[in-house]
Each structure stands twice: as structure tokens, then as C-alpha cells.
């Protein structure tokens, strides 16, 4: 399950006064099982990139291959793409419409070709994996749930198709800290089971903790593509790209300004803690 973008460009309203170039010459390969973080200022082209990957829009130039097949090719079957890739939009709870949680989660399986029993299994699995009690919640109306539960049901509705690639656009916006952690842990679990995760977020702490690779877009161009360990080294550059860094990286940076030697690849608290300790004990000047 790889995604490959080859010289992909996208222009909105070409040939009119409203012409805007959203993406320019993007070359990118995302391998099986990666956990990719996508960052950049609002309006840098992140959402456009995601929508191109799931085939909701077609590139103005360039090609996109999923598993080696051009998804905008003449004989490509779109249904195949829908089965392989799941996409969680920002505030996905807006998509809920059915009379019960079970029906809503099953919606995406209608045209999947799965048998009734298989579909039911998938629905149960999806509801349980997002941390809800299947037997309790299955026949409840999704609209009677709390905000956090609605979000989980909406995500279950995408997971039920068991996509091999999961694309998420700011999935933790508006969740409280507990909901955030629970959701991020879920993405990690799915990733461990082999699902490729592509997540757009402004939250550098979350991406530092979970993503293995970071990509930053700037005005439609690929500005940075590196393992997350190295992605946050150049703070001055990140500032111009409008990207924040994790708190651990910030502390390490502040310490280095105080004259302490700190490695520039500290991005998680677990990595920072031993360093803090040795500095505080005075053995690190």
C-alpha cells in the first residue's frame, strides 16, 4: 500500500481572475505502514494534498499512484481507492445522519461487497476499537451522544471499511486532553497493525510523539521532508514556515540558549527528562 505523487501540481479556478496555485511540483512517496505527520500554515496546501490523495480532486498536472496504479488513469476503478483509503475530515461528526450508531457506522459498507455477517463483524470491531461499548450504544441515535462520542462514532464509520491507509485532517481539534490521548493512542494501535497513517495537525507535541516522518508544506511547495527526529532541528526555519515545535524541543532549545549543550533531536518528553536531570544535578555544563 504505497502512495506515490509524481510532480503533482494543483491550481484553483485556472484561467480566471481567481486563479490560485495551491500545490506546485510535489514529489512524495509514502511507504506501507508509515506514520506521517503533515504540517504547515493554514492555506499552505495541506487540505488540497489530502483531497488529491483520496481522489476527490484531480491534479492539474502530475500523477498520483496508489499501489502502483494511477488513480486518475482511464481504467482505474474508483471503488478500489475508496476501499483502500479512509479519510477523516476536520470535525467528522458533521457526517452523521443515520437513526442508530450501528447503521451510521455500517453506511460505508453498503457497496463494499461484504456479506452481511462480515459487515456486522466489521461494524462491531470499529465501534469497539474507538473505545465505545457496542452492546450499549449500537441502537442509540448518534445525535443523542456527547461531542466526543459523536466524533468516535464518525471515525468508526470510516474504520469499518478497514482501510489500509487512514488520512486524518486535524482529527484532535476541539477534543479535551483525555479525548486527545485516547484518539492518538488509537491511531498508534492501528499503525502497529499495519495501517498507514497520514495526519495533518498543528499540534507539534502530538506529531513528535506519534509520527515517524514529518512533511512540511509552504505556499504549495514541499519545504521539508525528514524523519521526525530531525524535522524540528532548525527552529529559525520552522518559524518562517509557521510551524511550532514540541514542548520538549522548546525546553531543550531554551537550555542551549542558557549555555548548556543539548542535542537538537530531542522532541519527546521521555528524551528530555534524563537530560533535565543531569543538567539539574550540575554535571552538564
Amino acid at each position, binding site marked *: 500500500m504505497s502512495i506515490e505523487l509524481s510532480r503533482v501540481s494543483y491550481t484553483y479556478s485556472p484561467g480566471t481572475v481567481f486563479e490560485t496555485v495551491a500545490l506546485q511540483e510535489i514529489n512524495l512517496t509514502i511507504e506501507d505502514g508509515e506514520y506521517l505527520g503533515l504540517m504547515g*500554515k*493554514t492555506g499552505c496546501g495541506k487540505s488540497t494534498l489530502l483531497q488529491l490523495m483520496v481522489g476527490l480532486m484531480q491534479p492539474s498536472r502530475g500523477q498520483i499512484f496508489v499501489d502502483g496504479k494511477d488513480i486518475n488513469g482511464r481504467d482505474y476503478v474508483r471503488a478500489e481507492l475508496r476501499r483502500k483509503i479512509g479519510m477523516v475530515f476536520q470535525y467528522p461528526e458533521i457526517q452523521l445522519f443515520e437513526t442508530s450508531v450501528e447503521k451510521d457506522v455500517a453506511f460505508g459498507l453498503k457497496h463494499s461487497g461484504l456479506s452481511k455477517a462480515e459487515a456486522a463483524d466489521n461494524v462491531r470491531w470499529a465501534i469497539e476499537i474507538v473505545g465505545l461499548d457496542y452492546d450499549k450504544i449500537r441502537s442509540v441515535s448518534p445525535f*443523542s*451522544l*456527547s*461531542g*466526543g462520542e459523536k466524533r468516535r462514532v464518525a471515525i468508526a464509520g470510516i474504520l469499518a471499511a478497514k482501510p489500509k491507509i487512514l488520512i486524518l485532517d486535524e482529527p484532535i*481539534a*476541539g*477534543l*479535551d*486532553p*483525555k*479525548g486527545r*490521548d485516547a484518539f492518538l493512542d488509537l491511531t498508534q494501535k492501528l499503525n502497529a497493525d499495519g495501517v498507514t497513517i497520514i495526519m495533518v495537525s*498543528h499540534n507539534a507535541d502530538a506529531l513528535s510523539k506519534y509520527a515517524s516522518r514529518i512533511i512540511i508544506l509552504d505556499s504549495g511547495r514541499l519545504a521539508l521532508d525528514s524523519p521526525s527526529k530531525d524535522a524540528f532541528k532548525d527552529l529559525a526555519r520552522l518559524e518562517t514556515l*509557521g510551524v*511550532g515545535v514540541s*514542548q*520538549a524541543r*522548546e*525546553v531543550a532549545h*531554551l*537550555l542551549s540558549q*542558557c549555555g548548556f549543550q543539548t542535542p537538537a533531536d530531542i522532541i519527546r*518528553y521521555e528524551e*528530555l*527528562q534524563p537530560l*533535565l*536531570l543531569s*543538567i*539539574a*544535578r*550540575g554535571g552538564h*555544563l
Partner: protein
Amino acid sequence: MPIIQAKNLSHSYGFEGKHNRSIEDITLGVKKGEWIAILGQNGSGKTTFVKHINALLPVQQGELTVAGYDATNPANIWAIRQKCGMVFQDPNNQFVSSVIEEDLSFGLENYGVPQSEIPGHVKRALEIVGMPGFEMKSTHMLSGGQKQRIAIAGVLAINPDIIVFDEATAMLDPEGRQEVIGTIQRLHAEEGKTIIMISHLVEEAVYADRVVIFQQGRLVAEGTPEVVLSDVALLSCAGLKPPMAVRAYHDLQSAGVHLPTIPLTNKALVEAICQLN
């Protein structure tokens, strides 16, 4: 006398169930010019409580005075709303006109401010939020942070003493969030406004004078940020996470290193560590 005084305030939405977002027995006094941060999980009753301060919900049980007005008396609703403005989560759902000047005039017109005085108030409100000259611009062309600052200006135009922020940064990107927090800081420091700010980001509560924690409709803790935000057990009980600096402070302490004060921000943490050496 406190500008807001709630005494044994209770409210129930009249249906049973676990998502019945009611509040129970809330007692809280707020001094003029104070900045209160209200923290708590989604559904803990924060919004229900603050909607009382703006008289958007009637007092069912208990007492509440806002800016000297008794909120239990329905006759005071409009006077209270004039003294207490409110900024909401989704900036798009707060504008009545896409032309900024017209939107900012809305509140003033509601209170019958003479037409000749309106442009002056609008101009001043835009200056305070740092967007002078935006009168004729369209709201559709603004960034999220700018939209929220215009929403703040719309409230400021009628010159209230108290401004309530109901998760006003939740839908913004980090840049927009910083813009709004910066604006709130200015309102507090330079304009002397009383600020009530709902958030579930502990990092935002650091700037407040006092932090209040809600859990399942009850006020479970209040105190200075230093006291409340360093109480890891309390925070985790309310579904919140302490700032990273507090976590580091406790980890250092259990390893035998004692920092002189509990740092709430990364900057304070690094300063404290630097002073050790």
C-alpha cells in the same frame, strides 16, 4: 464588592441521563479586573455556568449578581448583557454582517446608541484588538484569528466591564490562538476588563489570575495557577493534563532535585534549572 457573585447556583436542563449538562451548587466570587480561567472536560458544566453570567440562561436555583445587578430578576437581563459580553467558539456563527463596520455597529444599535456616536466606538474597538482601518473589509477574507478578534471587537464596542470567552481559541490554529490570547492579555492589562475564560488547554490558563476547575457540574477546585495547575492528582481527576513544566518539576523532585518554585511555563522551568547551577 465582587463584580460577579454566584451563590449556590444550580441549573438542570430537565432531562435525566449522563449528558445532562447541568451545574450544581456553584459558589464563586470574581473581583473587578480579575482574570479567571475555567478548566474542565467537555460536558463538565463550564458553558452552562458562564451562560448565567451573561443572562443567557435564567437562574433556576441560587443567587447571582453581575455588575451590581441581580440576575434572578428578569428585568435586569439587558443591563447585565450590556455589562458582560461573550465571545463564542465558532467565529463564523457570530457575525450579522460580512462588512466589519456594520457587524461592530450591531451591538451598539441594539442599545440605541445614537448613530453619530457609533463610528467612534467602532474605531476604538478595532484599535484595541489591533486591527485599525478594517472597517470596510469583509469578514470572509479574514483568517480564523482575525475573525475572532473582530468578534471580540464587536463585544468591546459596547464597552462591557466583563468579557466571557467560551473556548474562543478551540477552533483556531496556533497562530490564531496566539493572536487571541495576546488580545485577551491586553484587554486585561490595559483596558482593565474582567475576563472569564473557558478552555481545556492548561497552557492558556497559566496567564490567568485564578484557575477554577469544573468536574461533572461541580466546582472542584479554585486557586492561583501555581497552586491548581501543579496539583497533578487534581488535574488528572478532572480529565486534564498538567503543563509539561509541572511534570518535569515533579520528576526532578522525585529524583532528589528540588527547584525553588513550581514552574508553569517552559521558560520558567529553564530559568529555575539555570539558577540551580
